[in-house]
């Protein structure tokens, strides 16, 4: 009797994992944890829950499918409140890209509103800054590779390389979690991208009682590892939700189902 129950349990468990695996085949399970972000001090540990993250950034092809299904997000129909004039500026018309663009490249020239809606329509959402940074601190081997010299060098060299947005997705190696292209392709939208106050006057931020107070202080000789992250925060601080930028795409995440 007991044995039977065990077996049943076993089957149920197997079944669940199989089903689970199928529904999330393009997403990867990220095991939660806590870490000290750029702006943090020892006392400011950020906690991240378990979640699923898209393996790859959303591609042009996927976005074409999206606007066909939701015509209100087509280039000619989108509300100006949700996306400025640059929205999908590299598209020939509402559903076709310019011939210079590739379908397997990451979608860019999308606003935060559009990106949020896209994720919502897939039953997903945009990652938070904390979630994004948590996954992005991994390299191929370590979940937190920030202390490694090579990790930062690679990222910084991308920040200096022009026109990476024309590459196809998936050309960078999988990181510790199996996620690709967090670095080396395009910037990515996050749900709360503007929650960190960067005023544009980064030296003044040093004196401000905001998260970046510590961020600025951290960029001392002892803390080189945050340099790359600091540039991401600066970038996020420079944009607003209506902007559509050539080097800015996105990917979605999903919460763990409540059991």
């Amino acid at each position, binding site marked *: 009797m007991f044995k039977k129950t065990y077996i049943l349990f076993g089957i149920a468990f197997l079944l669940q994992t199989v089903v689970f695996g199928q529904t999330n085949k393009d997403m990867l399970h990220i095991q939660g944890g806590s870490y000290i972000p750029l702006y943090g001090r020892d006392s400011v540990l950020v906690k991240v829950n378990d979640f699923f993250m898209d393996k790859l950034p959303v591609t042009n092809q996927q976005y074409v499918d999206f606007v066909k299904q939701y015509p209100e997000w087509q280039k000619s129909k989108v509300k100006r409140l949700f996306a400025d004039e640059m929205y999908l500026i590299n598209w020939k018309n509402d559903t076709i890209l310019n011939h210079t663009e590739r379908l397997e490249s990451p979608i860019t020239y999308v606003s935060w509103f559009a990106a949020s809606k896209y994720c919502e329509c897939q039953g997903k959402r945009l990652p938070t800054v904390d979630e994004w940074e948590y996954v992005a601190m991994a390299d191929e081997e370590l979940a937190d590779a920030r202390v490694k010299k090579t990790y930062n060098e690679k990222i910084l060299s991308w920040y200096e390389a022009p026109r990476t947005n024309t590459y196809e997705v998936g050309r960078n190696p999988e990181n510790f979690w199996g996620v690709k292209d967090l670095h080396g392709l395009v910037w990515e939208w996050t749900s709360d991208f503007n929650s960190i106050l960067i005023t544009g006057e980064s030296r003044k931020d040093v004196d401000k009682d905001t998260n970046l107070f510590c961020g600025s202080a951290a960029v001392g000789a002892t803390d080189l590892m945050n340099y790359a992250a600091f540039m991401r*925060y600066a970038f996020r601080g420079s944009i607003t939700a209506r902007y559509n930028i050539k080097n800015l795409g996105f990917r979605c995440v999903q919460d763990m189902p409540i059991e």
Partner: protein
Amino acid sequence: MKTKQHFLTLCFNCRQAFIAFAFITLTACSNKNKKEQIQAVDIPVNREMIAELTAPPHVPTPVGRRKAKKLIVDMEILEEEGEMTNGVSYVYWTFGGSVPGSFIRTRVGDEVEFHLKNHPDNKLPHNIDLHAVNGPGGGAESSFVAPGHEKVFSFKVLNPGLFVYHCATAPVGMHIANGMYGLILVEPEGGLPLVDKEYYLMQGDFYTKGAHGERGLQAFDMQKAIDEKADYVVFNGKVGALTGDNAITANVGETVRLFVGNGGPNLVSSFHVIGEIFDKVHVEGGDLINMNVQTTLIPAGGAAIVEFKVEVPGTFIMVDHSIFRAFNKGALGMLKVEGEEDKKIYSGELRDDIYLPEGGGIQTMPVGDSVVEEVPLQSLEEQLERGKQAYMQTCFACHQSEGQGIPSAFPPLANSDFLNADVNRAIGIVLNGLTGEITVNGETYNSVMTRQSLSPSEVANVLTYVYNSWGNSKKVVTTEMVEKVINQK
């Protein structure tokens, strides 16, 4: 302005300040500067004008007697790859496509409407802090602009002088280290006195992953920048931006005005022109004028205006007199002056024992051995190309661009009987240096050539280049030949 307020609070409380202000204005306060500033705020502007922007070493037309205007400045930010020195490239971040950025010329009272455009291809947000602005952040806060966007802000220029502008986006040091700085000149009413020639130069220090001269695309090195260990210290963004064909020029008898800035990010410049004395220096770019100056100190994030009359013809070398920066890291420019000799002022016979130009590499005195070896080469063509690069870095300063040398100081390599007579001797000289009297094409030379720190293949390349140029015997020197000479010792 600050001094005034301070003075006022000493004497009166805040409510009375306004009355006091009016009183001082009426009674024409004794301090001239204060008076100018009060007036500057009130100078009316009429008409709009698009500002002329120029890339270094050129400057826009002087303001002359023009009235204060609304001045539209259109500045585009570009991140692009450029050449640091022969064979070495670097991704520069620029205001207006050049390092230093475009020169802006204004006059006191102008209302500048600044349009800062961040090119859509750029990766990063940027902004601009102009030291000529009276306002928080010097405009940085109002100009923080994402790629593919344009920010507009305006300011009235109140203080005359030469001011630095730079990017102030985090990480600030990195943005400056990649070339994001330039100069804005504010001329007083009526303009600066007219001179014959005006030029724009700006020093900057660069930090690369590879050592000085290491070929290929070099990335920015944060650690070196923090340690303040510059690989390149240059004028106008690259080695050789002001030498050879790029040298600035003047004629005998003309007065030359140089607008000299220092972008940093780290190093302070000891600006000096070899063979000239500055008749006039606007110290730190301000009102204070010092006369008869040999070397003027330019702080990082500061500037100076220097003026001098050129009395005799010749090539005048501009350096940061922290002299290893000049001869080994690139901080060297040239002013070529043409015209009649004046034997009374300068008798001739060029001898320059102290500032022996030494080229780019690190030198050691004769003796010693072992240099890092490079990858062997394939074709003669490649050998010539690399040889030329090595020549321009190492030999050019003395033997000159066409191998003509400098009469009675440095022997010619062009059509040289001494060179063509013995290839092994030539290899030996490059490897070990040479001191003492020699005769080349009938002329006697008695000078010093230091031992050059070149690898055997570099020696082979540079000699092959020399032998295949300027009417020489077209010999090809191989790495083996060089190694043979090394082993003979």
